[in-house]
């Protein structure tokens, strides 16, 4: 499979801020890639460079085999973009908005109507964009990005401001697009989202890609112990500490928490002793990987 995106030694600064600082990455056609990183990590800037919105200070970007800078009109109909800030025509209704974008991409207005249905905005079709809630505007923005059925989609925090229903619906929608062979690149602050949707994720901080791999490989690489919680009254603390494979045990409100690097063995033992009621196993998540890589301090 050929590369949908090839980024080599990409860098750009805003004055003193090195927003993107020597990034290399490759995204295969049909891949679903997530970009994670704290606020100000440079995700939006990286996406804008790859989309061809900004001129890089250094490095090259090729998308679908074509250079993106300067503005490449051959490429534009093949990519779909949702910017982090909703960008709409002022005072148009939802329907007029998507019809306008459909026309810009040479697509029939009926396709726009289909998309309104797909993102659940039919009820709001005649509402002006200024009257949409944050999540509704977000969904319209996504519909406008996808209306021309692009081969490659860039979504900058598409699920920010969405309620849980809308978020799951969007997951289904994006997974469907990806299954039909489209390449999807999104940024997100939701680790569960990245874990569910993405083939690979890139963790960024301070303009650099710290690591890029499948979510599972990243979690394995963290080599963090699992935590098994046993309901209160099932197990005494000293008993717990004595179980084979348990490295440590602590009391908590939910019961006794066992820390182990061999959760399978511990769970098997608990099962044998018939103490599985209310047992919860937590292995390391992408969130742990994220915090491990980027630290816990606030970002500017």
């Amino acid at each position, binding site marked *: 499979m050929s590369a949908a995106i090839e980024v080599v030694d990409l860098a750009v600064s805003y004055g003193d801020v090195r927003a993107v600082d020597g990034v290399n990455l490759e995204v295969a056609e049909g891949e679903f890639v997530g970009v994670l990183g704290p606020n100000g990590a440079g995700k939006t800037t990286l996406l804008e460079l790859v989309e061809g919105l900004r001129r890089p200070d250094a490095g090259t970007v090729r998308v679908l085999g074509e250079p993106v800078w300067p503005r490449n009109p051959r490429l534009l*109909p093949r990519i779909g973009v949702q910017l982090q*800030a909703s960008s709409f025509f002022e005072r*148009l209704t939802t329907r007029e908005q998507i019809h*306008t974008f459909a026309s810009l991409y040479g697509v029939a207005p009926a396709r726009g109507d289909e998309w309104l249905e797909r993102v659940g905005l039919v009820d709001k079709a005649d509402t002006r964009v200024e009257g949409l809630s944050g999540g509704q505007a977000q969904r319209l923005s996504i519909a406008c990005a996808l209306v021309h059925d692009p081969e490659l989609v860039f979504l900058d925090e598409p699920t920010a401001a969405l309620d849980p229903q809308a978020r799951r619906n969007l997951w289904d929608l994006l997974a469907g697009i990806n299954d039909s062979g489209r390449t999807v690149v999104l940024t997100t602050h939701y680790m569960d989202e990245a874990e569910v949707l993405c083939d690979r994720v890139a963790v960024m901080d301070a303009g650099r890609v710290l690591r890029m791999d499948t979510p599972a490989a990243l979690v394995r690489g963290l080599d963090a112990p699992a935590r098994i919680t046993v309901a209160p009254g099932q197990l005494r603390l000293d008993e717990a500490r004595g179980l084979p494979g348990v490295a440590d045990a602590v009391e908590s409100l939910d019961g006794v928490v066992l820390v182990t690097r061999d959760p399978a063995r511990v769970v098997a033992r608990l099962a044998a002793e018939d103490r599985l009621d209310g047992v919860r196993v937590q292995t390391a998540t992408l969130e742990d990987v994220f915090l491990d890589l980027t630290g816990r301090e606030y970002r500017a």
Partner: protein
Amino acid sequence: MTGLAPFRALSLAIVRGFLRDRASVFFSMVFPLMFLVLFGGLLGSQGQSEVDLVRVGEVALLDEMDADARAAFDDTFEVTRSDDLASAIAEVRRGDADVAIEMRGDTLVAHYTQTDQVKAAVTQGALRAFVDGTNVAQSGEPPRFALETERVEDESLDTIQFVTPGLLGWAVAMSAAFGAAATLQGWRQTKLLRRLQLAPVSTRTVVAARVAVTLGIALVQMAIFLGLGAAAFGLTLSGSWWAAVPLVVVGTLCFMAIGLLAGALARTTEGAVNAANIVVLPMAFLSGSFFDLSAAPGWLQAVSNVLPLKHLNEGMLDVMVRGEGPAAVLVPMAILAAFAVVVTLAAARIFRWETA
């Protein structure tokens, strides 16, 4: 791609955005019309103002006029009496009166002021007519020659004639400049400009759509102004008024460029609109949109001659009411076009895709 569909879609989006913005519609359409109604309605009746005449001492001519002539005289002149010639002349000098008359033997002497040339001519002509008329009447012979007058430029002294082109110029300048400034700034603010950069439409198409809508608005303004002026206030256009259409088109482009510059310079939509305002409103005053500048001091007229709106106004006056031929718009059009080109180049130089 420069297809027709993207152009149509963008134009429609801009038109809708404009029509749904009450403030824009008010300031570019309703507000200038309010001025037209104000000037046309209130000042219109002063169009043919009477001539203030001071009658010094006994003026036998007036007493010997026949009744018809006397009635006509009273229609033309607002007569006050005075016994002191010197103070009457001083009054004329101050502009409180237009003419003072006295009898020296059988000669009627008129002391008039040349400040208002039109009025001076009217005064002299009218007095001469009354003197001649009275001479004829007193000779007892019926007059052999008669004069009948027919106006070529109907009511050419009417305020509405003068005010309509000026106000139209101001209205066109305002909505073109504001439209361009607000669109550029608003689209940049909402990042729509960036989004459009990523859509397969050329910059040319985007600009063409905005220009087309602005031109459309200007022509609608023109139609409303001329229509209302003619229907309600007796505006009469002279023969080559149609030549004002291309003039308005070029004028609109010129003020769009000014708005574009304001939009490129400013950082917020409000800032852009204010900047356009700061340029257009004083320019309207200095270009004779609200009052006639022919009596203004020389330096002011010199200033006004470097303002594009002045040339738009003058060109419109020439072909719409002064009865000049279509060629009268060529020089103003060239000046406006030159302004448009220079200002557009300046705007393009400092243009940024987003507020940084």
